[in-house]
Every structure is written in C-alpha cells, then in structure tokens.
C-alpha cells in the first residue's frame, strides 16, 4: 500500500519533470511571464537602469521573445546569472532561455545539451591594460598578472594564447565582471581580459576611460547568442526566429516607428507582409499569433535599433557595427528568409 503510494508519487514527479522539459512554450504561456537569464550587470548588454528596469542589448532579445509569445514585452522575469550559474539555471528549467553574452561552442552545444539559436553579437576576446603600463601589444605581456572571469571560454583562450606564444602569466580568477573591474582599477592585476565588447562597455564606465587602452590583438572567436535547452525544438524555433525577425526587420527597413503602419495592411513587399503577418500563415506554423514578429519589433525595434540604442556609437559604450553590420553592409548579420 505504502509502496504503491510512493511509486505513484514518483511517477507523478517524473511526469511533472518530463513535462517541464518538453513544452516550454506551454509553461511560459501558463505562467504568463518569460524567465530569461541575463548577466549580473554589463553596461549596455544587460543592466537595470535607475528605475530598476532591465535595459540592454541582451535584455532586448528577452523582451522581443516575450512580446512575440505573450504579446507583452514587460512580461519577463530577469534572472541574473554568473558565468558559473548560467548553465545550471538553464538546464534545471529555472530559466526558459539564456541571453547572457554566451559564446557558442561545440561542447556547450553538444556535451552540455543546449541549443544555440543564433548569434546576436560577433565578438572576440581582447585585453585591456592601463595606458601607463607601456604595453602596445599582447605579445609583450610575458609575466603579467591577468584578471579573468572564471567559468568562461576566456579562461581557456587565455591559457591557450599564452602557451602558444611561450609566455607565462599569473591568473587572478574572479567571479563577476564587476569584481574584475574593481581589481583591475586597484592595480591588483595588470591586465583584464574578456570579450572586447564587454571591455569597451566597462571601460566606458570608468572615471577616466582614457587611462586604459584596449590592445589590438583579438585572440579568439566569440559568437555570442541566446540559447535554450536541448530537446524542445518548438521553443528553440520561437527564440531563433524572433531573433531572425529583428535582423530581417533591419534588412527590410521595418523599424519600431513604422512597424504598426506597415503591419496594418499588406504592402508591396511580400517578405515584409509575411514577416508582419499580413500575408501567409507563418504565425500558425511557429505556433504563435500572426502578429508575433510585429509585436517583437514594436517592443524593442529592429536589430540595428537595438544595437544603436544600447551599445552603438551614439552611446557611452560606443561600439562600431563592424562584424555586426548586416551582410549587405559587409557584416556577418544575416537572417534566413521568411518564407
């Protein structure tokens, strides 16, 4: 008797667990909010503003997905994660998706059982040093003390770079970017290394940004993008195509300002019509409303607008589009067609 009750409970728990992993879309709809993992705070990418509202380049991806799925860009619960806690949070189902400048690597995609749905920022690892250190190239860093965020790919790239160049260094492992900056500014390490976008972002927040320089070397490829759990392809599709919708919108000239007008009735461009749901059944195919992409674009703007308002050259962070320009402008940002 006791046994059967127990087995019943176990079976139920097992089913509940399996259910949680299978249909993320249903869970999100039932919950009414999207649980999105972000950083603990990188200016421009994900950081709460003075009113406690999360803002940033990665945050916009979360908001776009929430707008596409739930029709409300504010229906997001942001879960700050560190380099170490992010994968556990995603794997355990605590968050539905992770948008936290996470590098798409082979082992994360296969061995850790995640699905990267695309790339929203092409980055590379760089080095920041104080200008008065008198170093102009990373090859002069033999013997230096280097601050690194533990649990990231930068840690491994750093070890490889110094080994390949026959140089030694003293690693100072640090948990979060904020602590690393604190150590760097206190002079407890000579060099701070992480993705160049994050270096630029953090340097912009310094009291005297000109006292620090970024070295020219880019020692790795860091394609950063949102990711979801392995095994729920429908949900992965939703996140992937929401990101693609933002990218296509820029390519097709759909902006936050004109999306309402363009989406109100079918226009001349069939691809815009399909994207905004005035033609075809794309929404039904992905399991969402016909206006899913329109909602996402209306909430955060197209990819270019998201870039410009958060990290672009007009902001304090001042990143150029570079590799992150549309393919039509010589960049790598490219969305498959909406067809």
């Amino acid at each position: 008797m006791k046994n059967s009750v127990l087995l019943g409970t176990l079976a139920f728990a097992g089913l509940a667990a399996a259910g949680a992993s299978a249909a993320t879309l249903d869970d999100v709809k039932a919950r009414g909010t999207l649980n999105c993992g972000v950083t603990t705070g990188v200016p421009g990418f994900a950081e709460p503003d003075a009113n406690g509202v999360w803002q940033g380049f990665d945050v916009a991806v979360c908001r776009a997905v929430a707008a596409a799925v739930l029709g409300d860009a504010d229906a997001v619960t942001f879960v700050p994660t560190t380099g170490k806690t992010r994968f556990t949070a995603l794997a355990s189902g605590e968050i539905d998706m992770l948008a936290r400048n996470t590098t798409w690597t082979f082992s994360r995609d296969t061995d850790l059982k995640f699905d990267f749905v695309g790339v929203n920022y092409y980055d590379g690892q760089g080095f920041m040093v104080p200008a008065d250190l008198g170093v102009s190239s990373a090859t002069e860093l033999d013997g230096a003390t280097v601050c690194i965020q533990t649990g990231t790919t930068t840690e491994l790239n750093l070890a490889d770079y110094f080994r390949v160049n026959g140089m030694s260094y003293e690693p100072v492992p640090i948990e979060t970017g904020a602590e690393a900056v604190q150590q760097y500014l206190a002079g407890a390490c000579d060099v701070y290394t992480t993705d160049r976008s994050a270096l630029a972002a953090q340097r912009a927040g310094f009291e005297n940004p000109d006292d620090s320089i970024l070295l020219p070397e880019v020692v790795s490829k860091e394609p950063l993008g949102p990711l979801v759990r392995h095994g729920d392809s429908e949900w992965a599709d939703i996140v992937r195509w929401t990101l693609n919708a933002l990218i296509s919108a820029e390519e097709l000239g759909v902006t936050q300002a004109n999306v309402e007008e363009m989406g109100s009735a079918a226009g001349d461009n069939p691809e815009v019509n399909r994207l905004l749901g005035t033609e075809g059944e794309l929404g039904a195919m992905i399991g969402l409303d016909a206006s899913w992409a329109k909602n996402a674009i209306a909430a955060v703007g197209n990819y270019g607008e998201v870039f410009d308002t958060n990290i672009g050259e007009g902001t304090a962070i001042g990143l150029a589009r570079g590799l992150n320009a549309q393919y039509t402008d010589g960049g790598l940002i490219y969305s498959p067609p909406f067809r």
Partner: protein
Amino acid sequence: MTTMTDPPKAEGFRIGQLINDKRYRSYTFQFIALVLLILSFGWLINNAMNNPILQRVGIDFGFLSDPAGYDINQQPIEYTSQSSHLRAAIIGAINTLIVAFLACVTATIFGVIAGVLRLSNNWIISKLMAVYVEMFRNIPVLIWIIIIFTVAANTFPPIAEFRIPRDGSDAERGLLFGMFAATNQGVFIPRLVFESAGWLVIGTFLASIVGVFGLRRYARHKLYSEGRIVPVLWPSIALLIVPTVLMQLLLGSPVGVENPEMGRFRFEGGFLMRPSLIALWFALSIYTGAFIAENVRAGILAVSKGQTEAAAALGLRPGRVMSLVVLPQALRVIIPPLISQYLNITKNTSLAIAVGYMDLTGTLGGITLNQTGRALECVLLLMAFYLTFSLAISAIMNVYNNSVALKER
C-alpha cells in the same frame, strides 16, 4: 494477594503488543524509523534517476583524464594548462590543505593567547580580549575574508611603484632589507634554494627536533622520578639552532636564499604569498581563534580553584602551576572542541572562491565543473575529498586526545 505472585499467563502474541508492550515498543518505532529512512533515500535516488538532465547526460568520470585547459596560480606541484582535470583537482586539494594547516596553527596560537589573557586580572587586557572574541565570532567569516582581502588590495602599495621606470631611473619603492616587498599583488618573500648537500642540513634540523623531544622526555623523567628540575627551554633552542648552523657552515652553505627581483611586470624569483592566501589564512585564523579562545577559557575555568591553591601551597611558582597542574587538566576539556574547530577551519576553506584562492572548491568544484558541465560527478568527488580530510583530521586529533585524556589506573 495470591494473584500478584501468579506467573503471567502464557498468552499468544497480539498485534497490540507492538505498541502497548514496553518490550516490543522500541523495536516497533525503530523499525518504522528505518523504513521511513530507506523510503526517503529511495525517493531522493529515484528522483535523481528520473531527472531529465541526468537521463540525458548520465554519470561519467572520464572527463577527469581530459586536459584541464585552464591555468592555476598557486601550484604546489607542477601543473600546466595541458595537465588533466584530475591533476587540477589534486592541486586544489593540496592548496586546501596548505591554507587549512596554516590557519589551524595560527588560530590555535591566537586562541590560546586570547583565552588565557581573557582570564587576566588586568581589567583592560581581559576586556580587550572579550571585545576581540565577541566581535570576530559574531560576524560571518565570509565577511571577514572579503574585508581583509579588500583592505590588503587597497592598502598595500601598488606594484607599479616597485617597477623600474622605462627611463631607467630608480623605482619609487625598493625591497625591505632587499628581501621583502608587500604589494597589492601579494607579498613577495625570499625562498630557500637547496643544493644537493642541502638535504644534509635539513636532515640535521629534523634530527634536532627529535632531539628536543628526547630532551623534554628526559627532563620529565627526572622530574617525576627524582624531583629534579632539568632546564629545558634554552638547551632546546640551542639544540635546534647550533647543529644546523654548524652543518650549513661546514658544507659551505648548501642552503641558500633567493631574493625576489623586479622583472618587467612583477617580482621574479622568491616566493609569492598571494592576497587571496593571506586574506583567507588570516580571516580563518582570527575568526576561529575567537572560538578557540572560548574553549581555552572554559578549559581553564573547569579546573577547580582548589588545585591552583594546593599547588601554590606546595610552593610551585605561578608559571609551573599553570604548566604542571592547570593545563594538563584543562587540555582534557579543551581538546575535543578544538577538534571540531579544526574541522570547521578545513571546511571553511571552501569559502576561498570569494577571493579567488584556487582551492579544491575553486578548481574541481568551480572551473572544472563549469567547463565540463559534470556537476553531479564533481560534487560527489568534492564531498569525498572533504570527508576524507575531515575524518583524517579527526583521527589524528583523537590520537592526541587519548594521550591527554584522564587515564584511570
């Protein structure tokens, strides 16, 4: 009244007896507890087996032999980023033991001093010690670690001031005595370097230590059997120093000192005590020292005043009263809680990650876990390591405890 003496009727066993009969009741409850325990463990294990992540990934310790790929700053044994994850874990384990050992030694010293001084008749000293104890044991050790680390990083002079400017002029600061430099990247101290004959010097020193123990044994024997007091302190110090120094001089200084020297960015050569090690060591010592002080005080107070008075009446000097009468009895009270303080230190070293000290939790439970994603395996290994350390410390300390425990004759 005859009924009272009647033997109990030989009735058959009834189910109700399991609860009502004193003879069976304890078995019943033990059985129920056992079943509940087995069921709850079964539930936990079953839950883990049904876990969707685990079902996908499985349990596999093979990653331990893969190259770790990351560097570790404090390397007690040789290690490169191409060494295996297992070796990284072992480095972490050794680093854990290093800081645990250092902290146990200094915590004991702090604790004994503070505990004895807290009983001092001098009002200011005893109150100062009370403040120390109450302040340090009532604030979490993690906070102390971070405070000391921050203070060290911000008060020690920046290493840039020790660098030789590129125009070739003198650096702003030099080494203290040409040997020491306290910087915000750590404290650089000289290192001993051994030529091949250096081992003879070390051997002599070890033999001297054995000699000191022999001397103390002899002195105790003399005291107990003949009542003669043989001087111990100065002969011990002489025995420790003289033969080793003689050996060093005779063999032409095979044990040398390597001073740190300024390189391009930092000191090279010598030995570097990193801020993370200093912060962790100092914080653990001073925090646990406060607890040990209370143990010591309790131990001394547990020896009745009559003992002290009787010893004084026999004409013993206060120092001897303490060392021959009070402390041997107090130790019986002090040692058992001291063991748990040592275990606490060892386990609290896992807070090292807060300041980036690469202990076992930092390597195996931190970077390895995170880079391989093998959380369950890493955590199981972590538990095994810490359990082994703790049980080993317990075992060693229990041997010592038995040697000071009351021996009934």
